[in-house]
């Protein structure tokens, strides 16, 4: 019954699409409201049901001194922290992944797979378990409420991802290429940088994408470990979630913060279709 199946297929896909879009549409609509529109009951369509205003939006760019919320600072902080932590995680993670893929380690009963598991198990830790110790750790180092401190913590979060993806990737690059490089006169470092690395770009891009995504969306650590000096985007926005919740600016801020990763979604889809992602993710 191919026709029935096709119908079901389109029906489900469209249904889910509506589900996906729903919160966004609501947020967009809400961002143009003001106090009255919100408290009067649920309203949807601008102009028909309420008077749209740009209050919610303009207040985002005004600094706090003028009664605004200013998300530009936190925005850049988030970008800086995410990218720096991702970069370092990928750099160190790739090196370690290469070692785990190519060499055998044995220290007593600890072997390669155990070390890889150690890296990956960092993801099992719920943020809350690490939060308190990290809090004390950073305050001892004087790095609380600082970009550097946060980057340090994010490295712990992101390096496992880089290692997980790159170990798998390296396992699929034939060892013989490394060997040929050695035979051709490269010491192991040169072999890695001149031969293996140029052929690992797809894997590193995948690792990069995942690191950026998981770094950008973190809330908890930024929440616990920063206060006034450094503010990251998610924290800033949740801080607005107080008793007199300004729904309109909240929605506007939310939309602004979510926008960049929509671009990432495009990039990921392109990668998928080209088949690069599939290989790396297996």
């Amino acid at each position: 019954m191919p026709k029935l199946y096709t119908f079901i297929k389109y029906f489900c896909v469209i249904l889910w699409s509506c589900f996906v879009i729903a919160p966004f549409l609501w947020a967009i609509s809400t961002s143009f409201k003001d106090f009255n529109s919100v408290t009067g009951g649920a309203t949807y369509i601008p102009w028909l049901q309420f008077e749209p205003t740009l209050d919610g939006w303009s207040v985002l760019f005004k600094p706090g001194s003028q009664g605004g919320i200013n998300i530009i600072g936190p925005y850049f902080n988030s970008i800086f922290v995410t990218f720096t932590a991702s970069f370092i995680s990928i750099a160190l993670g790739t090196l370690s992944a290469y070692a785990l893929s190519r060499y055998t380690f044995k220290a007593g009963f600890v072997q390669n797979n155990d070390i890889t598991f150690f890296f990956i198990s960092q993801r099992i830790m719920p943020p809350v378990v690490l939060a308190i110790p990290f809090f004390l750790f950073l305050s001892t180092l004087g790095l609380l409420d600082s970009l550097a401190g946060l980057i340090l913590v994010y490295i712990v979060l992101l390096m496992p991802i880089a290692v997980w993806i790159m170990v798998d990737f390296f396992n699929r690059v034939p060892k013989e290429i490394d060997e040929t490089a050695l035979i051709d006169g490269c010491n192991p470092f040169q072999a890695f940088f001149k031969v293996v690395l140029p052929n690992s770009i797809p894997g590193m891009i995948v690792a990069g994408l995942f690191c950026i995504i998981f770094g950008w969306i973190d809330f908890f650590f930024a929440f616990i470990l920063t206060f006034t000096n450094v503010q990251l985007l998610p924290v800033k926005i949740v801080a607005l979630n107080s008793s007199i919740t300004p729904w309109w600016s909240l929605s506007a801020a939310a939309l602004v913060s979510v926008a960049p990763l929509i671009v990432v979604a495009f990039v990921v889809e392109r990668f998928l279709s080209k088949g690069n992602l599939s290989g790396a993710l297996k």
Partner: protein
Amino acid sequence: MSLNLGNIIFKPTEQYHLNDITLNFEPGKMYTILGRTLSGKTTLLKTIAGLLSPDSGYIQFEGKDFLAIPVWQRNVAMVYQQFINYPHLNVKQNIEFPLKQRKMDPNLIEKEVSDAIQKVGLKGFEERKIQELSGGQQQRVALARSLAKKAKILLLDEPLVNLDYKLREGLREEFKKLFIGSEASQSIFVYASTDPLEAMQLNGDIIVIDEGKILQTGSAKDVFENPANAKVAEITNDPAMNLNKGKIDNNKLILNNEIQFNLPSNLQSMPSGDYLVGIRATDLYLDDQGFDFQVDISEISGSETFLHLHHQDTKCVATIEGVKSYEVDEHVKINFDLSKIYLFKESGELHYSPYQN
């Protein structure tokens, strides 16, 4: 300038991969390492290259302790059976790579690279990416890269096994021609193979290896005609040499107590007793006066037919000229060319070969 291996042992797991290997390679010569799959050929090559370290033993090259020199400082070259090239570089860059690594004079590099490209017949392909090339072409690039290095030791690990038949024949001839070039440059040329026919065609010195042990070394002709033991006889023939229990008694040669021949003149001087009787598949022939055998399997390969036969307990394979079809269980009459019989002691060692003088 010779390469000497002594008492090399490599035992990474429960089994020996290399079991007390002692070999000598002289410069300017071609060596074929012949053995079945997993016999240790690749391990041996990798040990010479330095990719694997033996557990004990010594390797000396040009009088120096080779084991103390890391891979990237030994002047060797290796061609793998999977076409291995640098995927991110084009043909020219691939061949240049080791020379650039050595920081050679750029003009000299140009000359060597174009020389090598010429030799392997890839002129005009310099700018092509590796992925665009066919299997044979990729393997030629790997070969060119090895040649351009002018390495003192050139290792090839079944380089033609992944190519089709015609290509294999053609490239094998080219190898021999290229070798004449390295003869002049006094390199050591080591070629690993599972195919006895290939080993014969290359016509160098053969080293027979099985389960990590060297069974025999010698010229191609010598190893083929006078295998040191039954195992070597199996490895150096395809199909394997037929081996059956037999005995000489009362002026008769009897196989498995069921097939009897009058003792031929060449075997008259052999003492009576139990032997392992060997005869090549090509030395059996269809003969209406022969013995009755039943066909188990009939295989066609190229322009020959291989018949797997049995006569009660006696099993053998016969090579028949031409492409003929036989049914399973069909009866055929087979006879043996007794002038080509080999006798091995029950322990396996060669007792008599039809070629010994």
